[in-house]
Each structure stands twice: as structure tokens, then as C-alpha cells.
């Protein structure tokens, strides 16, 4: 690396990004609806899978203690 090249540590603390604040405000009217549905559906599937394995695989193998 050349000595006149900027170093990784030269980056500023909180540099503005390319996000336009007006566009962000408009987008934030819908967010997080998509996320809630996607994440919610995923978690629901996990819960369902958990219950299915519990009742269909684990319990039929016999009580144990």
C-alpha cells in the first residue's frame, strides 16, 4: 500500500450516505409492514415445526424421565 493512499482509519465517524431524507420519510410510512409479515411468517413456521416434531416424533417414542 502506498504511503499517500488514504488509510482505512481516515474514514469519518458518521459520514452521510446517499439516502435522500424525503424518500426515506415516504418509505417509512410503509416499513415495517413487509418485515413484520416476513419475519412473523417465518417464526410461525418455526413454532409449527416445533409442535409437529414434538407431537409426531418425540411423544410417540415413549415417556422418559
Amino acid at each position, binding site marked *: 500500500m*502506498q504511503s499517500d493512499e488514504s*488509510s*482505512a482509519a481516515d474514514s469519518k465517524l458518521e459520514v452521510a450516505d446517499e439516502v435522500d431524507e424525503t424518500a426515506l420519510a415516504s418509505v417509512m410510512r410503509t416499513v415495517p409492514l*413487509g418485515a413484520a409479515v416476513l419475519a412473523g411468517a417465518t417464526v410461525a413456521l*418455526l413454532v409449527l415445526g416445533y409442535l409437529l*416434531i414434538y407431537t409426531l416424533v418425540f411423544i410417540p417414542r415413549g415417556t422418559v424421565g
Partner: protein
Amino acid sequence: MGESPVRNAERLCLAHFWVAFGAFLFACVLGAWQMWVRSPLGAKIGTPGDYFMSVTAHGVSMAYVLTTFFIMGFGYFVAVTALNRPLPGWIWAWGAFWMGILGVVLALISIGSGQASVLFTFYPPLTASVWFYIGLVLVVAASWVWCVLMLVAMHAWKVDNPGRPVPLAMFATVANAVMWLWTTVGVAVELLFQVIPASLGLVQTIDVGMSRTLFSWTLHAIVYFWLIPAYIAFYTLAPRAAGGRLYSDTMGRLTFILFLIYSLPVGMHHLLMDPEHGNGTKFIQVLLTAFVAAPTLLTIFTITASLEIAGRLRGGRGLFGWIAALPWERPMVLAIGLAFVMLGFGGFGGIINMAYGMNAMVHNTSWVTAHFHLIFGGSVVIMYFAIAYEIWPRLTGRDHLSLAPLRIQLWLWFIGMMVMTLPWHWLGLQGQWRRVANFNYADPIIAAWGPWVVVSLAGGIILLISALLFIRNLVALHRSDVRAIAKPLYALAVHPPRRVPAALNGFGLWNVLVLVLMILAYGFPIAQFVIEPSPAAIVHRVR
């Protein structure tokens, strides 16, 4: 005068990363070999001695070398770039690096000479050569130096920036360091007071109830030590890489705090099938384990929302249109998508594992092997790749010639991991057990497993190809002619905080809570063996 400390930090980071990834490649080769010899295709190859030596080397390389060195290197990088100041004590950092190297060399030599085939979990009374343990102690000691440097760096920044919120990437890195200091106490006590004296012949017996309990103290939080850098990438790198904003900086801080407090007092969920502890203790630990699921579930929502912002800013419409609109051609974005899929499957395995009585269905079967390869080897390591691809240009001043080989490598890792681990879940439910050098495929129950073992092997080979491609991509970057353009790295939040409460800017309060929870969860289980040691088992030297 010599080079500036800043230049030194780049060499420091690269040194750590190359050690980490070198160990990683070595371990991938071993892993593929192991899978071949225990499959029907390689049934006549290799002795048990070879196999268990390989498993020990594979586990030590992946669980102790790849992880510790990567995390140290990434931590130094964050401390310098997020805080925008030189690393304090870089001479200590280099000293720690070389001490870690010495430790790795000692451990690998003792493994290679056949005197340490005790696996990376080294369950006493099986006892290896003392050099194996000394090697591991040196690696841990090196990481402790790193922890102190992280704390010093954050403290120095806070002194110079009173009242300002610590940048999230550094806050999370220090949370990880604090958690690591707490969790290594367990294995350190086990090694220093029980295992090393036994290995030196100073004692002939060992209290196994105590040693298993001490090891379990370390055993869960260590995986969160590995995981937190991936979450740092989720919260502080991925939103900007996708062209969006982090949905909530506050939730980010809360997530890392929850990991700090809830990943420590839960280690005994690895001992649910053990006879040295009763139901009450086991149930408390299951309860606390349920709490540690919370930060991951919160993360899923916050990061998905952050990506949704990016997708909608790029024109994605409707309930799910934002998903396709994301810039999937960027390696960091692709990696996080693949990581989340693997997190779903791996997390599913995890909630089954921790479900108290249901652990009996899966304990020490291939289900467990599937779970941790998927969640660690999958979700976490793919983010290590993505972090490397993202920050390497900043470390070398050169940029990738093309992003296509990076995407191909990430896809191969994902496909290989899914093909390798999904059959293991099924095999685990059939009763296939762990750490076997060769199966008796003549037995009818075991014969039925053969085809699935071969499918799994195919996944392992794909992973090896991906690992080779990963190294190739990094080497190509070192040789690249493309100049890296300096550009900002860390994501902004939708509302960058101007002030945060002290509780979300430091760890004083949380350390107290950790102490309370550890006493609650581990107090009696350990004290009982101090008051009345278990009937001692005879030390068994491994040759």
C-alpha cells in the same frame, strides 16, 4: 520515526485474518476427509487413530483458531475505523498475536504427534499431553489481551467524547469482549486447576462432575462470541451495503446487551442428559435459554426492516416487492440473505435441542452436528466471508476485479452447507450417533443410513470447493490492479442517536446483572462439588 500506528493496524488485522483463514482451509480439508472415511465409500480407509486426530485438529482449528483470530482482527479493525483513532497499545496487540501463534503451534504439534486426540471439547478424565492444553491457554490469554485493549479503546474514546453514544459497531465489539472475559473463566479454571495438573501427573484422579460443569460454563457463551461479529455485520455493515438505513440503533444496543446477560448462565443446557445435575437446575437453565432466543428474534425483525427500507428506496412495491429490489449482486447483501435462511433452519434445530425433555430425542446424535454446522459453519462463517470481502479493500488499498467469483463462492457455501446438514437432521432422528470413525454398514439399521451419508458427503465436498475459492478470491485481491476508492463503511440509523442513556452506552450495570444470573444459575451446581467433591475418576492418558 517508524510507520504510523494506523498503518500498523492494517498489518495487524491482516495478520490475524490470514492465520484464521489458513486454519479454516486446513480444517475444511480435514472435514471433507473425515466425511469420506466414515461414509460407505471410504469404509476401508484410515484408522480410528487417524480419524480422531483429524476430528481434534478440525475442531480446534474451527472452534478456537479461526474464530479467535478472526474476532481479534475484526475487533482491531472496528476499534480503529469506528472510533476513528489509532489503536491503543498496539505493541500489546502484536505481543498477543505472537503468543497466540505459539499456542496454536504447540496445540497442533501435540495433536499431530497423536498425543492429544481428545477432541476440541477434551472431556476429562481423558487426558492429553500438557502441551495441548498449554497451547490452548496461550490462545485464550492472547484473546484476553485483546479484550483489555477493546475496553481501553472504548474508554479512551468516551473520555474524549463525553456524552456521545459509542458507535454501535464498537459498543457491540466491547460487549463481545466483556462476555468473552466472563465465559472463559469456566474453561480456564477447569484447565488450570483440574486438567493441567492431571496431565502433568500431579494428581491421579479428577472430579468429572466439576469439570463437566465448569466446561459447560464456557460452552454456550463461546458460540455467541463467534456469532456477535456476524451480528455486527447485520447491524452496522449490511444496511449501508444494501443502500438503506438501520431501522433502530437502540434495538441494536439492546440486542448486544441481551446477548451479554443471557448467553452466560445457560451453559448447562448442554448437560441436560447428564446424571450429575437434577431437574431443578436443568429447568432454570432451560428457562434462561428461552430468554437468549429473544435477541435473535428481535434481530430478525430489525434487520429485515432495515433491508425493507433499502428495498423500498430502490423502488420495491407491495408487501414483498422490496425483496427482489435489493442489490443482491453485492456480496454483503447476498451473504445476509443466505445467512438468514440458514439461521432459520439452524435456529429450528436449536429450539428443539433446548426443549428440556425433548433433548433426549437428539442428544449426541447427528442432529446436534447438523445444528452447529448449520448455524456456526453456515450463518456465522458466511458472514465472516462477507466481512472479509467488504473490509479487505480497505486493508489493502486494492479492490476486487469482479464480484462474480465472490457471489459464486457464497452460493457454493450455502448450497454445500444445506446439502451436508439437512440429511444429518434426518439421520440424527434415526439414531445415528456422533464421533464415529467408521460405521458397520452391514447392520440393517445402519445400512439404511448409507445413502444419506453419501449425500451429506457431497455437501462437504462442495464446501471444500467453496473454501478454496474463498482463499483464491482473497489472494486475487492482494494481486489486483484495481485501486480501492475510499468510501464510508458503517450504516446510519434511521434516527442516528445524539444521546443514549448510560445503560446503553456502557456495561457497568450489566456486569452486575451477569454476576447475579451466574450465581443463580451456576452457584449451587459448582458449590456442591466444592463442598462435597464427586467420587473421583482415574485419569486416562491418551496415547
